[in-house]
Structure formats: structure tokens, C-alpha cells
């Protein structure tokens, strides 16, 4: 589509008003909301040729929402990428939840991230910053603090006053302990990791001893006036600096008494009405306390004398967070404007005896408040209300200038939120609080390459399924025939039977579920929708036969060799004979479903699996890892295929390896057995196994240039990777039938439009 066309196809204000007049959805019951078919897109049929198919994409109006696009690429000109009709879906109204805390673990090089809704995620920075683990959120848990203690144990504390420990192997909450001090604002582990200090609403600082299987209250330190909003241990573990409203106090951890109290300056500009809130403190080993406050200052205090040493006014808004490097030669602060500032300890005299903290670099990667920062040995990590997790490497700390030294911005989860019923053309969207079922639009028109086709039937919102209880949805799936929907929270599993009669949908919950189906990490239906595979807690894998109105438990595969690690991904072969399951960090195991026994294990690989699929007919298992390697494993022969060996010998293209989002979905073309279709957030790729592999000298993204080139050139330069970057950010892509693709996009502007208000800033020229 030409740019001019795109501009012309923008809807006018009239369309918007018609959209505003759309009737509210029918509410049938508290739990289900069905929408009347046909009344949803009333008043939108009269459009011109280019813009008929506008659907509903949140507040912003974008053309081609549920549009069909004749992505008609000439097969020969393309070198065999094929010709597809593409359903371009933009009505997945997903808004990632803002980040509240980040905590970096030096031992395992992992990053724990907690979000406003209580979700906790673990990113493995060594494995290409892949989101390895994920604890679904909970309404009652407003996490305010997150820390690692005793090696690799993860604790969180929140405004409900509880301290929670997470079981990182079984993927569940181990226990929660009441802090008995009201809402908890801050938490930090002492340098040895054997004590946790929490700062409470009532002004008390409590020490908890971390024992192997629980934590126990040891002592309450001297109570302060006002809530303790920030807290930091001295690296020797003897003193604690706490920040409250208008003051910083230094407490003795042994005796529990206050040794020093430093009052904040109340004459800051703009703080007449508001009090000075100390959002963050950091205690350095030389006794310096660094504070960040709501007046926009970073201040350095001497904790011995209680005097102010240095003041850096940064912004007119709040400075919300601070983190110090382990070596204490650099620190990072995050502000409400979305800027993070890097401070470095720089020798002020040539002999190096004196050194001074200097503000060196500002970085603006966020649009909204940076609520939390962390400092890894080589990078500054920040997260905020705009839900971006930004990992900014420090170039002076990076030894090898490879692609690991590049900036990383993680916005979307590294798991699939969408499942698709291909035959019925249904999409199931998973939100933290609800599920939505949509039917795709249809067209009768045909067009040539890059045309936008008019819709004869608009996309329909069929069903909204709200979760019950305080726990968020952790996984969901729709069966390929569309007649079953399953989802699970941390403690309950739900299965629904759908019934589609012309123009109406009815839903019925399957009430008699077996007792072992209490929760699930991953749900999958077989290709003929007759079987249900549920990866449950402690690594067990249930095989259940679905009958009309009842369930029959066939088998449970227990994890091998006594590991109780949760399963993160499942794949079933289209003929229903093989099931592959990938653990969180262990390898992929394959089960024979005909004889209900384990078949084999795929040789172990260091990096976690991001996507998994079994090809039809050949039963080749295609595995994508977080380091962007793609393997093909023949299940019947229990070995890697020749193509996979060839790829490993030849090596993948450097641009392929430098992509920074993992492959989240793999699918196959039913008519072309040599094709593998896969996608990540920023590209869609068809790998043609029959074509030669590209080497580092050939351009990887040469689809567009090859189209115009002559036959000879085309033949010479064509290679196995056909990449399209047209759809971005791409959350899901699947093949509906031989010639139709569905692509679900989520433009970033739509997300920003639904975030809380940002800080007002003056920009030159506006």
C-alpha cells in the first residue's frame, strides 16, 4: 500500500462519532458477557473501497483493523514466500501493566521484575534477556518491594502488609508472612542475605531472619515518625538508612536505636505545598547516604556527622528510585519524567586520592515515571509506568563490543497471549483479568498484491469471559474446532464448552473436573479437539479425553528423575501421537501418546526454549531457543534431522542471531512440507528448507529488493529465510488455511494512550 493511500484512508471525524454512538455491550450475567452479533459494528458499513474494514482498535482509530490484506506476493518474484491473504488484527486491546520493582541477582545474572498488579517475572540476562518464569498477579498483592536473599531466594512485600516468598522451581507462592506493621513500603536484604529489613506504614523497621524454609521476625527497631518509604543496608550490615517524609534516619541494626537523623531542606522550590518525600536511599560503605526525593534532588549525606555533603538538583519532578553498582563506583537514579541519570565516582585530583560523585549521562528511554532502577555490573536497568523494561549497557564496562552490548527494550511478554481456532476463524485473547473471543471478518473480493480488500462481514466480538476471584489468568487455550475453551489461574482450572448456532453463542461450564486439575501452567488441545493436555504443578502432565459433557482421565506423566520443575511449553503432533513438553530450564521431553509412555529426551541445550511445534506427516519437532537458534529434531528417529545439522554446521546469519525478541510461535504449511513459519515481535519469517542457507555476506532481509531484480539475480541471491517486517509489533501470527494468515498487531501508540498521565514537560518548538 502506498503512503498516499494510507493517508487518504484515514477515517474522518464522522466515523469517530458513529463509533462513539456504538451501543453498549449487552450484559447477560455477572460472569459472562455475550455481545449480540451484528449490533456491534452498526453504522460503519458505508466506507470507501480502501477503508471498509475498520474495526475497533481501542480509542485510536486505525484503518484496516480486522482487515484482510491481499499480501499477494508474486510467488516467482518472491523466491517462494508464497501468496497470502492476511487478516490484520488490531483489536487486541492489550495494555501491559506498569513495572513497580526490579531486582537484579548477581549470582545467577537474573532479573526479577514485579508489576503493579502483583505479577512477578524472572528474566535471564545471560539467555538473551528471556522471560523465563512468571507468577500471575493477584488483586490483593500490590507489590511495593522485591529483593533477593540468601543466594537465589526471591521475596516480595506489598501494601497488604505481607511478605511473600516465591518458589522458583515449582512456580508457586511458598508462603506469606504478615509483617504486623501495616502496609510495607520497602524491603532490603542485608549483604549476607540472612536478614530482611522491612519499612512499614506505622514507622517501624522490622528485621526478619531468613532460615532455610521460612522467615521469622527477629526484632523491631526504634519506631520512627511517618511511613518508612525507603531503606538501605550499610555494606557491613551494621546500620540501616531509612527514608521517610522530610527526614532520613540511620538506625543501628544491633541495638535498634537511631544514631543519626538528617532533616531534608524544606525550602526547595515548589515544595511549599508538598512535603519532601524521600523515595530512595542508598548507603555506601564509606558512610555516605545518598537520597532521592520528591523535590527532584539527589543528595549525598555524611552519616557520621549528619551533614549534607553534595546536592544535585536534577528535575522539577520527583526522583523516584536509586540503585548503586556493587563496586560503588557508579549509581543510577530514575525520575518521574522518564529520564534516568548516571552518576559516577570520578577522581578529582590527578593522583587519584580524592574522588567526587559526578552526574555523567542522562538517558531518556521512558515516556512515563521510572518507578524502579537496578544496576548490573555492565548495564543500567530501569522499569516504569510505561511498562518498558530497558536494559542499557554501559559501554565503558563492556569488554567485547558484540550485540549483547546493545540497548534492549522489553515491552511485550515472551509468551503467547493469543490462541486461534483455525477452522472457525476464532481468536481467543488472554488479558490478565478476562478472556475475549472474536470471530474474524470475511471478504469475497479478490485483489492483487498489497491491496486492501473490503470486508463483507466485520469482525465480531463474540464473548467476554471475566475471571472469578482475585487471581489473574495465567494461561488459556481454545481448541482448534473452537468448541472448548480452557483457562487457569494459580489455584483453579476452568473448562467451558462452546456452542455456536447461527449468529448466537452459548457457553456452558464443565463443572465436574477431576480433583488433580487444580491449576495449570500450560494448556493444549489436540488437533482434533478430542484430547486435552494440561501441564500442572510439580511437572506432571495430564492427558484427558474430552467427551460430550464429560471428561475421562487417561494418564498422567510424572517428571523424570524426581525433578519437580514446571513445564512451560507444550506441543502436540497433528496426528495426535506425540507430545513434546519443555521445562523452564531443563530440556524437551517427548511422550508417545499412543502407548502413553515417555519416548525420549531432546539433547540438552543451555538456553531456554521459547517455542515448540511438531510438523505434520514427518513428525519433526522444531525448537526455537532464546539465543535464536532453531533446531529440528526427528521424533521417530530420535535424532536431529540433516537440515538441522546443516544449519548448525553452516551457522545462522549474524543478523538473525542479533534479533532481541524471542520466537514465540511456530507453525507449518499443510501443502509445503519444506516450509517452517515462525515469528517474533518484529518480524515474520518463512524458512524454506530446500533453499540454500545465507552466509554473513548475503543480505538477510532482501525480499523487497529481490522482487524488482531480474530473474538471474533473484536466483543467485535467494536464500532460505524469507522475512517480512511489515507487521509490527506482532503479537501473534498463524496460518488459518493454505492461503490465509492472521496477524495480531498492537501498536505502541495505542498503549501509551491508555497509560496514566505523564509529567508535563516543556519542549522547544511546541
Amino acid at each position, binding site marked *: 500500500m502506498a503512503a498516499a493511500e494510507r493517508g487518504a484512508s*484515514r477515517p474522518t*471525524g464522522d466515523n*469517530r462519532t458513529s463509533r462513539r454512538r456504538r451501543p453498549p455491550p449487552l450484559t447477560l450475567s455477572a460472569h459472562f458477557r455475550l455481545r449480540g452479533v451484528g449490533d456491534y459494528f452498526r453504522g460503519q458499513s458505508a466506507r470507501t473501497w480502501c477503508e471498509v474494514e475498520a474495526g475497533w482498535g481501542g*480509542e*485510536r482509530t486505525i484503518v484496516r483493523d480486522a482487515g484482510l490484506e491481499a499480501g499477494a506476493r508474486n510467488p516467482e518474484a518472491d523466491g517462494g514466500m508464497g501468496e497470502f491473504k492476511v487478516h490484520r488484527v488490531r483489536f487486541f486491546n492489550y495494555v501491559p501493566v506498569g513495572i513497580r520493582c526490579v531486582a537484579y541477582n548477581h549470582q545467577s545474572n537474573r532479573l526479577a521484575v514485579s508489576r503493579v498488579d502483583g505479577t512477578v517475572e524472572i528474566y535471564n540476562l545471560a539467555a538473551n534477556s528471556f522471560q523465563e518464569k512468571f507468577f500471575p498477579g493477584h488483586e490483593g498483592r*500490590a507489590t511495593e518491594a522485591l529483593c533477593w536473599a540468601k543466594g537465589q531466594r526471591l521475596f516480595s512485600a506489598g*501494601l*497488604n*502488609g505481607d511478605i511473600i516468598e516465591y518458589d522458583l522451581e515449582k512456580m508457586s507462592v511458598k508462603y506469606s508472612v504478615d509483617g504486623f506493621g*501495616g*502496609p510495607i*513500603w520497602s524491603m532490603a536484604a542485608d549483604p549476607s542475605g540472612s536478614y530482611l529489613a522491612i519499612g512499614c*506504614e506505622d514507622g517501624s523497621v522490622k528485621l526478619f531472619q531468613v532460615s532455610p524454609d521460612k522467615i521469622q521476625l527477629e526484632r523491631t527497631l526504634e519506631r520512627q515518625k511517618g*511511613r518508612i518509604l525507603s531503606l538501605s543496608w550499610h555494606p557491613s550490615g551494621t546500620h540501616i538508612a531509612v527514608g521517610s517524609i522530610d527526614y532520613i534516619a540511620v538506625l543501628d541494626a544491633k541495638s535498634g536505636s537511631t544514631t543519626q537523623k538528617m532533616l531534608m531542606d524544606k525550602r526547595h522550590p*515548589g515544595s511549599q*505545598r*508538598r512535603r519532601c*518525600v524521600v523515595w530512595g536511599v542508598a548507603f555506601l560503605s564509606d558512610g555516605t547516604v545518598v537520597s532521592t526525593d*520528591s523535590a527532584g534532588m539527589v543528595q549525598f549525606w555524611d552519616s557520621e556527622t549528619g551533614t549534607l555533603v553534595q546536592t544535585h538538583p536534577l528535575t*522539577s*519532578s*520527583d526522583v523516584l528510585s536509586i540503585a548503586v553498582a556493587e563496586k560503588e563506583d557508579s549509581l543510577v537514579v530514575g525520575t*518521574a519524567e522518564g529520564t534516568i541519570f548516571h552518576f559516577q565516582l570520578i577522581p578529582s585530583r590527578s593522583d587519584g586520592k580524592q574522588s567526587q560523585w559526578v552526574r555523567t549521562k542522562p538517558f531518556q528511554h521512558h*515516556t512515563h*515515571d521510572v518507578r524502579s532502577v537496578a544496576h548490573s555490573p555492565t548495564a543500567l536497568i530501569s522499569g516504569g509506568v510505561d511498562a518498558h523494561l530497558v536494559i542499557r549497557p554501559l559501554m565503558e564496562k563492556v569488554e567485547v563490543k558484540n550485540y549483547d552490548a546493545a540497548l534492549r527494550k522489553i515491552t511485550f511478554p515472551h509468551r503467547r497471549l493469543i490462541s486461534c481456532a483455525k477452522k472457525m476463524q476464532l481468536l481467543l485473547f488472554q488479558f490478565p483479568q478476562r478472556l475475549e473471543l472474536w470471530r474474524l471478518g470475511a471478504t469475497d473480493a479478490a485483489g492483487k498484491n498489497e491491496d486492501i480488500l473490503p470486508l463483507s462481514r466485520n469482525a465480531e466480538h463474540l464473548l467476554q469471559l471475566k475471571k472469578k476471584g482475585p487471581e489473574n489468568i495465567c494461561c488459556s487455550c481454545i481448541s482448534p474446532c473452537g468448541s472448548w475453551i480452557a483457562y487457569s489461574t494459580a*489455584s*483453579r482450572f476452568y473448562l467451558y464448552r462452546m456452542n455456536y448456532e447461527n449468529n448466537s453463542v452459548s457457553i456452558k461450564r464443565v463443572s465436574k473436573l477431576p*480433583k488433580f486439575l487444580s491449576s495449570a501452567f500450560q494448556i493444549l488441545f489436540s488437533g482434533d479437539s478430542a484430547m486435552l493436555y494440561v501441564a500442572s504443578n510439580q511437572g506432571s502432565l495430564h492427558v484427558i479425553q474430552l467427551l460430550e459433557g464429560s471428561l475421562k482421565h487417561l494418564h498422567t506423566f510424572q517428571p523424570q528423575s524426581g525433578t519437580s520443575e514446571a513445564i512451560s511449553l507444550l506441543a502436540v503432533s497433528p496426528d495426535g501421537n506425540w507430545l513434546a513438553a519443555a521445562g523452564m530450564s531443563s530440556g524437551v521431553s517427548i511422550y508417545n501418546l499412543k502407548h502413553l509412555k515417555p519416548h525420549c529426551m531432546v539433547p540438552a541445550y543451555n538456553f531456554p526454549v521459547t517455542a515448540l511445534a511438531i510438523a505434520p506427516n514427518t513428525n519433526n519437532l522444531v525448537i526455537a531457543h532464546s539465543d535464536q537458534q532453531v533446531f529440528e529434531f526427528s521424533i521417530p528417529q530420535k535424532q536431529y534431522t540433516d537440515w538441522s545439522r546443516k544449519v548448525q554446521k553452516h551457522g545462522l546469519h549474524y543478523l538473525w542471531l542479533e534479533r532481541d525478541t524471542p520466537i514465540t510461535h511456530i507453525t507449518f504449511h499443510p501443502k509445503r512440507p519444506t516450509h517452517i513459519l515462525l515469528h517474533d515481535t518484529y518480524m515474520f519469517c518463512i524458512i524454506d528448507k530446500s533453499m540454500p542457507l545465507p552466509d554473513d555476506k548475503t543480505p538477510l532481509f532482501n525480499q523487497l529488493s529481490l522482487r524488482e531484480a531480474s530473474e538471474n539475480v533473484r536466483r543467485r541471491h535467494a536464500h532460505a529465510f524469507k522475512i517480512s517486517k511489515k507487521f509490527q509489533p506482532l503479537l501473534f501470527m498463524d496460518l488459518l488455511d493454505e492461503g490465509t494468515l492472521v496477524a495480531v498487531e498492537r501498536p505502541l*501508540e495505542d498503549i*501509551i*494512550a*491508555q*497509560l*496514566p*498521565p*505523564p*509529567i*508535563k*514537560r516543556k*519542549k522547544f*518548538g*511546541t
Partner: protein
Amino acid sequence: MVNLRPRRSCRTLPVRLVVDQGGDEEDSERESSEEERQDVEFPDGDPVAEPMADENEDEVEDDEAPEEVTFASAQAEAKEDERRLRDALRRDKELLKEKRKRREELFTEQKKRKLLPATILEELTTAPQTKINESSSELKKGNVENENKEKKEEKMFPKRVKKRYMACRLKDQDLIDLRQQAAKGFLQKYLYGRGSNRTTVNKFLSLNNKRLLVKKPAVQFVNNSWGMERKQNAKKFKKQWMHKKKLASRRPNII
């Protein structure tokens, strides 16, 4: 219009006047009652005797001889009285009895209502037993019978324990919620409240648009009907302010 008074009132009026003169109210009441009685009795009695009776009314009452009652009738009357009294007493007693009975029933019912359902009570009584059994079985593991028993009871026990609820005291929960609300309010006030210098998303997104060469439509359109009241208030304030300014500028000229 003239209302014709009834005859009787015409006749009684002088009497009443006389009585009023006498100033004895009781007499007048008695008189009137007497009169009524007379009116009622009029058809039976002698109409001629009436004025005479009227004249010496008091004497007639005083001189009336005690009614003659025969012994039998008196006895019957007395017996009747006695019987009535007894009956009343018995009825009272019965009523009291019934009342007591009803109250008793109510008490028992209340007691029953206060108690938990029988099934729960049964289970509660069995629950500690299992614990005891468990501990005892741990002590003497060899006892097969005991283990069997324990298994049986364990099977029964999880049926109740594995409920989808958690017991908590509502009073504490209210306090926690209240404190959590206060904490969230604090956060909201300091990050998004007055003086936090926030802008709207629309304005924020339009910043880039303003500097672009190709101007795009705003991401969110504003409805003009929003904030009507505030706009009017602002208009009014502006008017007042201008008026005040005018007055202030005029004042030095006057003085």
C-alpha cells in the same frame, strides 16, 4: 336561616339555667342522665308524673327502698360469681402455662439455631481424633489396625479441609483494607495529585506531532461538552476579575 330547635332542648334549657344558677355541675350531669333515662323510659312510665318527679328528684332517689332479692336468686348469683372467678383464675393459669411452654420451645429452638449443623459438629468431633490417631500411629507404627483406621479417617478429613476458602477475621481484614486504601491514597496524592505537574496523554502525544512536518490528527479527540461547568465558572471569574481590575484602575482618579 332559622333552625328550629328540637322540642326537648327547649324544655331542658330552663332546667339547665336553674342548675347553672345553682352552680352545681354534678347535679346538672346527673340531671341530664336522669333526663335521658326518663326519655327512654317515657313510653313505659306515666307522662303525667313527669313534672312532679322533676321537681323532687333527689328525694325519690334517697327514698328508694332496697331491692328485694330472694335467697335462691342471691345464692345463684353468688355461685355464679364464684364460678366466674374460678374460671378466670383457671384461664389465667392456663394462659401462663401456655406462655411458659411457648417460651421454652423458643429457647430450645434458639439454642438449636445457635449450634452448628449436625454434620459439621460430627466432623469437628472426628477431626481432633484423626490428629490423635496420627500421633498415636506415629508412636506405634507396627499397629496395622490403627493405620487402617487412620487412612479411613484421612480420606474423610480432606473432603472438608480441601475447601476453596480461607478463614479470616473480618475485623482484621477491614483494618488491612483501610490501611491499604490510605497507603494507596498517599501514593496517588504524591504522584498524581495537586502540584504533581501532570499533563494529559493527549497533550503529551501531541508534542511530537507539533514538530512533525506532516501533521496528523490527534490521537484522542476532545468532546466540547466536557467540563462545561468549569468552563462557565472560569468565564464568570474572568468577568469578575476584569471588573475588579477596572475598579482598581479607576480608584486613583477618584481620590
